[in-house]
């Protein structure tokens, strides 16, 4: 606010001085020139009338001569002062208008509005640096879960576009250098903004993400930082100073592909848990063993090649860069979009192909040519531009690596359900039988649609039932929470508890008889109806106790007293 006043004052200094000088001199002159009243007596115009007349004159409103008709001398004088006054006014007004369209002034205005909107934020929010396709997806996901976002973005076009977008118009957004410490402070790194719950560095520039991560870890070490890092070097660097999550989309995809190759059940369970709730469940994905063709050995291709090495799969590389081809024996120089290069890589006998160049159209072309040569191929394609979704869906690829989608999903999952990564890590470290158990339990409750995930924290108002139960000497167990408190038969809600976290202790897939304590954090996966019923029962003061004790607990104080007397 101060900046705006200061800038206005500085710019308006000259025009205002000119205006005051011209105006006051004109008024003095007007008072000095003698006039005549109707009777012919000599009168002077008083200061009030003179000021009024000059003001009306200079603003070109011109109500006429007053208080009485002017003499010729006065008219001549008015004629002289008319032009300097009008010019002085136009000069001032012109300066103000040019100030409004001045880029510097607009920046100050935007910054001050951004600061005000961030201050007024009354719900938890993340600082989202970079509002490209990933940022957009993440903001949508956050808003769906009742979390807000303060957006910093380098492209002015995107920030202006946000203001016109109904979904995001209410989010504070600021255009500028996202790595600038001052912008990050404005957005929430400074003290006194308790609603800021974390920083997401998801620009498409690794170095910018690194700078953001370092800056926020230096200023506010307590705030979690979730960052995108597309090279191993930057990811390691970020991890070295305590960045809470680094997301490398192609590594994530490659690791998931390895799971699909070596442990399809784990892959499937992981896929169910991280896909958007309510989408159709993916069924068994079975990438075949055999010879693979890998077109494009860039960032994506390199990671896939490593996975193939790890899994012991035989593959042939096609790449346009001679130096990359030379490094690997048996590699083929070419784009892969031509039939003869693919044939050279013996596509006719291959089990699958990975179209992993950096160009979407090339990849589509590779997929189509390859399928023409060998329709039984398992096809994996890399997609860079989200606008090509439809094309890749129609291409017949079995798996599409969508960079922004992978980043958005992972960051959202960690930001909104922090227990999920814990569970997924556990899933990976366990043997197949654990994955099978999870698969069976999820399959039993899901209706062919991917589950919603929700976290229950038994603290504050969510723990009142537990307090009451303690007083009544009733133990509330998991089975009570996962049953429908509003049915006679206590039917089981369609949900599974994945993790129970109590202090530093973690229980995976806790059993039905597991007792619940205050402070427990629980991660559930299940249908939306189960979430609603569970949250209802937790807020209803007597619902859980009644279920746990197997009899109805009165809600009113008098009836409680009566019940207690009858019991004793």
């Amino acid at each position, binding site marked *: 606010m101060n900046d705006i006043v200061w800038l206005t004052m500085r710019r308006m200094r000259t025009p205002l001085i000119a205006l005051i000088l011209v105006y006051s001199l004109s008024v003095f002159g007007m008072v000095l020139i003698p006039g005549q009243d109707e009777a012919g007596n000599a009168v002077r115009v008083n200061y009030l009338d003179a000021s009024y007349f000059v003001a009306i004159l200079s603003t070109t409103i011109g109500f006429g001569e007053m208080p009485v008709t002017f003499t010729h001398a006065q008219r001549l004088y008015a004629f002289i002062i008319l032009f300097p006054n009008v010019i002085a006014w136009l000069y001032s007004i012109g300066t103000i208008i040019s100030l409004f369209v001045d880029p510097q002034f607009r920046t100050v205005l935007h910054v001050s509005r951004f600061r005000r909107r961030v201050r007024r934020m009354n719900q938890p929010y993340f600082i989202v640096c970079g509002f490209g396709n990933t940022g957009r997806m993440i903001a949508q996901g956050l808003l769906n879960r009742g979390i807000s976002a303060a957006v910093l973005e380098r492209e002015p076009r995107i920030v202006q576009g946000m203001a016109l977008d109904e979904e995001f118009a209410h989010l504070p957004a600021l255009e500028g250098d996202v790595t600038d410490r001052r912008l990050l402070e404005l957005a929430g790194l400074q003290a006194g903004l308790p609603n800021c719950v974390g920083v997401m560095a998801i620009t498409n520039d690794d170095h910018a993400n690194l700078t953001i991560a370092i800056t926020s870890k230096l200023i506010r070490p307590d705030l979690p930082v979730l960052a995108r890092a597309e090279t191993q070097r930057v990811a390691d660097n970020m991890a070295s100073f305590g960045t809470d999550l680094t997301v490398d989309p192609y590594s994530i995809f490659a690791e998931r592909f390895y799971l699909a190759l070596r442990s399809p059940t784990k892959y499937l369970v992981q896929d169910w848990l991280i896909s958007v709730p309510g989408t159709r469940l993916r069924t068994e994905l079975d990438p075949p063993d055999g010879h693979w063709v890998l077109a494009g050995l860039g960032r994506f291709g390199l990671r896939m090649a490593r996975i193939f090495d790890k899994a012991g799969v035989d593959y042939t590389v096609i790449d346009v860069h001679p130096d990359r081809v030379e490094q690997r024996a048996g590699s083929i120089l070419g784009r892969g979009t031509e039939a003869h290069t693919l044939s050279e890589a013996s596509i006719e006998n291959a089990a699958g192909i990975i179209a992993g160049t950096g160009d979407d159209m090339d990849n589509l072309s590779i997929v189509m040519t390859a399928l023409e040569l060998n329709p039984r191929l398992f096809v994996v394609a890399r997609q860079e531009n989200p606008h090509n979704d439809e094309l890749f869906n129609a291409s017949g690829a079995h798996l599409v690596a969508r960079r922004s989608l992978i980043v958005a999903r992972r960051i959202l999952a960690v930001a909104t359900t922090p227990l999920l990564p814990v569970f997924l890590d556990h899933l990976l470290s366990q043997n197949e039988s654990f994955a099978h158990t999870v698969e069976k339990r999820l399959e039993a409750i899901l209706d062919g649609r991917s589950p919603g995930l929700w976290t229950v924290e038994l603290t504050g108002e969510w723990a*009142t039932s537990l307090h009451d139960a303690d007083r009544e000497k009733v133990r509330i167990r998991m089975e009570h929470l996962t049953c429908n408190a509003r*049915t006679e038969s206590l039917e089981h809600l369609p949900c599974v508890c994945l993790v129970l976290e109590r202090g530093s202790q973690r229980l995976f897939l806790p059993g039905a008889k597991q007792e619940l304590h205050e402070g427990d954090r629980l991660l559930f996966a299940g249908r939306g109806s189960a979430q609603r019923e569970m949250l209802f029962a937790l*807020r209803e*003061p007597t619902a859980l106790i009644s279920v746990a004790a197997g009899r*109805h607990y009165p*809600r*009113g*104080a*008098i*009836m409680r007293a009566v019940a207690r007397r009858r019991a004793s």
Partner: protein
Amino acid sequence: MNFEKVVFGFFIVLALTLNFGFFVGDIDNPAHHDAMELGAALAVSLIATVIKFGDRSQMGAVLLATSLVADLQLLVAAFVWAYAAYATDAGVTTEVLASIVSLSGGAVLANLVSVTLLVAETITIRR
């Protein structure tokens, strides 16, 4: 069977029926409106309110609010009746009776809301 529901349902419905009994009839005909019935409706309504004390659930809060409204309407009606009968020379005139009955009409509405809420809650709970 939920004993609390029986007790509360009994009082809230009784309050409604008594209140309705007092309310029906020509609005200014003293023969159609009995003071005893008004008193009984007030007493029952007060009991229904007190039973809801201490209920921290959502529904409990709304039910408490509606029965407080009914109590207020009936209390004012009873006060107007007592004031007109004992503190004024004119006694309970047709105008005074009309305002008493219309106040109890408001209480009938509040009671109706309570009963509707009670029924709605009972339907959602299948135990």
